[in-house]
């Protein structure tokens, strides 16, 4: 690039220099935080070279030489070698000296160029980054320390809960190294999960590569202008390609595929210029783009076929022929090392082979089909009830026909005794008799029709059930899916704590919806860690007790009717009720702890925040068992605990097999219909009203005395003064014990689909949802445990019950078009006991927000259908949601993007790939958890 020929050009070039320097300093700051950040490094490299060109254009020799020095230093570090911190410091110092030179020039007080340059060269020489550094290589994450950190964070208070003092204080105070590798490496994922992430990335990348190939094809067939350039309206295709490349870059970076990320970043620069119009899409550019995209596919599928030299050559060819040739580097065009055909087809074949044995279907599509199957079954069930009413009407018709015949006979007799058999009365009698006969015939025909319809309806029901079962089968997976992961958790925890523990699994073939297993994974991991850390005694203690020194954790699953029962047990020391009671006194002094029985005390261990609210400390996030209960509740299941001192503890999780259609019991109270899921009902009895004590609120049932409630009372209705001598009583589980509820009238059973309560009523205490019956009637579906709890709170009863202010977990909505990023961030959120909800883009997020009320939103910028800025604009129009704090997490971290995000109300702006702690800190900050304590949740 020739120096500026006019003062105006020179001034403009200097202005560009100043702007570029600001961006370079941003990149250097990012490298100072994370020297292994590939995006920041590539960006810094790019900016340094552009800075050099701008300096040449400005005719500023001093700046030119300083920029060249920085470029040479950066270019001299081999790819794949992480920058050392001294090098980054030298780079930062060089940037400052560059700025000093620039200011000196602007102010007419030139600094000593020679001295500044010499110092810069000395700094870089001292770093010796041109050869692989021995001591500054990428740090390895110590998984043992990471597990230790998890244990310390998640099990810290249980150590106090279940024993007199923490057995080991050292592990609870380890300082972990700052994460330098991509966030996903580390304690969040086991090797098996890591493999799954890679598989998921490749599947996701295949989709994006197909998208960009299709867009490229459209570009290639687009009409050209006279100079052979693609006409402007095809910016859409360029945008689609850019978005796909951007997503591949982000997803690969987050799972540590740095080479892919770096190459995609270089490609993205070119695409940015195409999109902005600063680079024309002439035929050479088109060829270069096609080659570059093909190589991207090859790099994803078969990295060994896309070595660094080839990648650099392809990127260089993109630059050649454009307005900005790279100065300071070899400028001669490099011959292509492979034709686009050679690059593209192998890549496509390689990727296609990954999934050739399966048919890929959108998960949303499958969920839609399952939903339709559920609705079909529920509708048919509604028809069933209609048929019952039809039968009732038929019976009435039969009775009417009989009465008509009786009247006709009486009339006939009356007319026969009259003077003239043909008189008018006789005619009427005959007419009535004929009508009676007709009515009877109609009844018979309808009866036959009813039989036919009932038969066909039964057949439809069977078909619908089969359809539902087959669709659900597509989502089913066995327990064996989780076993490797759980095994690893046991091994890690046991090794760290010096225990010998074996995991025995039975019922691995039991199948559940894959989603259920995913939701159960975290609870099971919490149970395992809890058991190893607090349930299992040290070896010496076990030997002294005559136990096998190798402790056993048993995990079993079996089907019981329409439920799956999962049992997790240890043969450790059992729950320490004395410690729990002591804990309860400190947690809530108002609790009548002495009156609580062991079952109620055991129920306390599931309370979130219970173990953190102690006299000795306020830190720590709790036992993690609240996560167990919360997750199981989300699945409409129950969890119970049984324990025996010195023998062990067992947790029993019961889950309904299907999440869509449930069998419900319909009851009537206060003139309205209500539904209970059959899975919630333990028993159903008809009791003698004399066994119910209204004053004490109890009922005697099968020799036991249970707490008793009346459903109208629970619903806030007026009690029906008419009492039945043998009322119907349903037995539910509430607060860990059976509770009886009498209902005025049973209506029947029906299969229903439980839906939300609409956009206005988010959650109503005691109501799980609503169901629409076949006739269009809406029926509330009651949550008996919550209904009872709400009634108790309302009545402020003085019962020895756990009146805990159990707050719901923090809900984080993760909006990102990359499956890998959604997976990683969701796992990070869940590991903190928070609840992640994921959306693929802004549009899906808006749909979810109709019924979801997250505590914060983590939002990507570049997404299909609705990008981050469009989503923010839409969010601002939602009066009930617009105050939800948003954290933007994107790799597009330019000043424009930051400013725009700020204008649209973003509370925090993070650069991808984002270190875990930064994201967690941002979430805590924007949701106000920052003032609770470092690990208050």
């Amino acid at each position, binding site marked *: 690039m020739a120096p500026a020929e006019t003062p105006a050009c020179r001034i403009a070039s200097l202005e560009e220099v100043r702007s570029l320097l600001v961006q370079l300093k941003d990149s250097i700051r990012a490298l100072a935080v994370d020297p292994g950040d590939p995006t920041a490094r590539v960006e810094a490299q790019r900016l340094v070279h552009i800075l050099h060109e701008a300096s040449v254009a400005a005719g500023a020799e001093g700046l030119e030489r300083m920029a060249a020095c920085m470029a040479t230093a950066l270019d001299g570090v081999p790819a794949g070698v992480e920058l050392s911190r001294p090098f980054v410091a030298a780079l930062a110092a060089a940037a400052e000296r560059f700025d000093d030179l620039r200011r000196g020039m602007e102010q007419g007080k030139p600094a000593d160029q020679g001295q500044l340059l010499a110092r810069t060269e000395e700094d870089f020489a001292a770093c010796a980054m041109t050869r692989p550094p021995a001591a500054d290589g990428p740090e390895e994450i110590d998984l043992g320390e990471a597990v230790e950190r998890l244990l310390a964070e998640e099990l810290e208070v249980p150590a106090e809960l279940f024993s007199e003092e923490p057995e080991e204080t050292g592990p609870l105070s380890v300082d972990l190294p700052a994460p330098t590798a991509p966030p996903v490496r580390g304690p969040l994922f086991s090797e098996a999960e890591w493999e799954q992430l890679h598989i998921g990335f490749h599947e996701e990348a295949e989709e994006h590569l197909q998208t960009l190939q299709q867009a490229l094809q459209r570009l290639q067939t687009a009409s050209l202008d006279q100079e052979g350039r693609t006409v402007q309206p095809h910016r859409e295709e360029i945008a689609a390609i850019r978005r796909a490349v951007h997503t591949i870059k982000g997803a690969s970076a987050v799972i540590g595929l740095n080479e892919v990320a770096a190459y995609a970043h270089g490609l993205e620069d070119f695409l940015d210029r195409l999109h902005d119009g600063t680079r024309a899409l002439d035929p050479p550019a088109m060829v270069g783009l096609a080659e570059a995209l093909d190589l991207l596919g090859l790099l994803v599928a078969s990295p060994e076929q896309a070595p660094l030299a080839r990648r650099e050559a392809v990127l260089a060819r993109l630059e050649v022929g454009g307005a900005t040739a790279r100065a300071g580097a070899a400028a001669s065009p490099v011959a292509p090392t492979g034709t686009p055909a050679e690059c593209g087809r192998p890549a496509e074949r390689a990727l296609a082979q990954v999934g050739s044995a399966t048919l890929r279907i959108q998960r949303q599509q499958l969920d839609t089909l399952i939903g339709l199957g559920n609705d079909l079954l529920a509708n048919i069930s509604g028809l069933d009830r209609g048929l019952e009413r039809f039968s009732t009407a038929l019976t009435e018709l039969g009775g009417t026909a009989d009465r008509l015949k009786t009247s006709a006979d009486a009339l006939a007799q009356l007319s026969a005794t009259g003077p003239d058999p043909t008189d008018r009365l006789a005619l009427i009698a005959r007419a009535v008799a004929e009508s009676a006969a007709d009515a009877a015939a109609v009844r018979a025909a309808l009866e036959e029709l009813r039989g036919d319809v009932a038969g066909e309806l039964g057949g439809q029901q069977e078909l619908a059930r089969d359809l539902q079962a087959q669709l659900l089968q597509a989502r089913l997976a066995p327990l064996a899916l989780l076993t490797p992961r759980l095994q690893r958790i046991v091994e890690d925890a046991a090794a760290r704590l010096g225990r010998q523990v074996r995991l025995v699994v039975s019922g691995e073939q039991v199948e559940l919806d894959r989603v259920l297993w995913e939701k159960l994974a975290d609870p099971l991991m919490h149970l395992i860690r809890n058991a190893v850390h607090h349930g299992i005694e040290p070896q010496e203690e076990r030997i002294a007790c005559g136990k096998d020194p190798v402790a056993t954790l048993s995990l079993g699953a079996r089907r019981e009717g329409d439920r799956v029962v999962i049992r997790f047990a240890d043969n450790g020391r059992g729950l320490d009720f004395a410690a729990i009671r002591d804990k309860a006194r400190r947690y809530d002094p108002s609790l009548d702890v002495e009156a609580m029985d062991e079952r109620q005390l055991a129920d306390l261990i599931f309370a979130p925040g219970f173990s953190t609210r102690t006299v000795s400390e306020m830190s720590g996030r709790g036992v993690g068992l609240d996560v167990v209960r919360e997750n199981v509740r989300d699945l409409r299941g129950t969890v119970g605990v049984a324990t025996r001192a010195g023998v062990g503890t067992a947790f029993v999780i019961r889950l309904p097999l299907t999440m869509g259609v449930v069998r419900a019991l319909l009851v009537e109270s206060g003139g309205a219909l209500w539904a209970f899921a059959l899975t919630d009902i333990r028993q159903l009895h008809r009791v003698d009203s004399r066994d119910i004590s209204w004053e004490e609120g109890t009922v005697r049932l099968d020799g036991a005395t249970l707490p008793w409630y009346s459903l109208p009372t629970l619903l806030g209705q007026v009690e029906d003064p008419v009492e039945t001598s043998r009322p119907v009583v349903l037995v539910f589980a509430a607060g860990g014990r059976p509770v009886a509820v009498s209902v005025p009238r049973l209506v029947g059973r029906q299969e229903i689909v439980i839906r939300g309560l*609409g956009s206005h009523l988010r959650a109503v205490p005691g109501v799980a949802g*609503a169901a629409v019956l076949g006739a269009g009637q*809406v029926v509330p579906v009651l949550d008996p445990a919550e209904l009872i709890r709400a009634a108790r709170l309302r009545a402020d009863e003085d019962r020895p019950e756990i009146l805990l202010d159990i707050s719901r977990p923090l809900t984080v909505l993760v909006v990102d078009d990359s499956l890998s990023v959604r997976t990683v961030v969701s796992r990070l959120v869940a590991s903190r006991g928070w609840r992640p909800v994921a959306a693929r883009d802004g549009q899906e997020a808006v749909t979810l927000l109709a019924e979801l009320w997250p505590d914060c939103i983590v939002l990507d910028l570049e997404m299909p259908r609705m990008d981050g800025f469009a989503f923010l604009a839409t969010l601002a129009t939602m009066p009930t949601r617009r105050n939800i704090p948003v954290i933007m997490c994107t790799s597009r971290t330019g000043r424009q993007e930051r400013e725009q995000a700020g204008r649209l109300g973003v509370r*925090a702006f993070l650069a991808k790939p984002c270190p875990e702690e930064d994201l967690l800190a941002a979430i805590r900050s924007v*949701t106000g958890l920052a003032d609770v304590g470092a690990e208050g949740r």
Partner: protein
Amino acid sequence: MDACSRPESIDRGDGPLPAGDHRRPAVAAGVRSCLAFFLGDTELALPLTDVRETGQLAAVAPLPNLPGWIRGILHRRGEILSVVDLACFLGLPASQWTGPGQPYLLFRQSDLACCLEVARAGVVVHPEDREFAAPEARPSRPARLTALISGVFRSAGRDILLLDSERLATALQLDNPRPGPERRAETGVPRGEGQ
């Protein structure tokens, strides 16, 4: 509402503005079409853009543990909607609940949708800008109603209170159990800063 009973009658042509409030109700002035309706003897209106339909309520399923101004829920064309006793919500004399057949307005404001139970749905009116007046505070008028009125206009000799849709939607929301950073900021706790 009877304009003649107001202590200050306003001649929009050349009369003085009401003392204490010299602002023009800009929001109300921008509304071109409204649907008027009655809650008892009080006539109100909502912008037509926020009232998608009127009709008669089908069977409403009651729900427990909710404020008394929520009648329950109903099902309408595949959607579950809540039913709000608007008179009760606004603090006006309660309307006679006649059950199925009670008139309602389907109110939609951004992400909120619910059925507003009314005594009688009126007609569509098209107030001119000059017909709007700022709402006056009246001791007899419930505070919540006053807070939700964006303007008053006269039509056919009647005063009609125009409700602000956004404020109404916000007011209808049930409490979020988790206080957000804004509420914490009110108590002096600093909010998190963006990067």
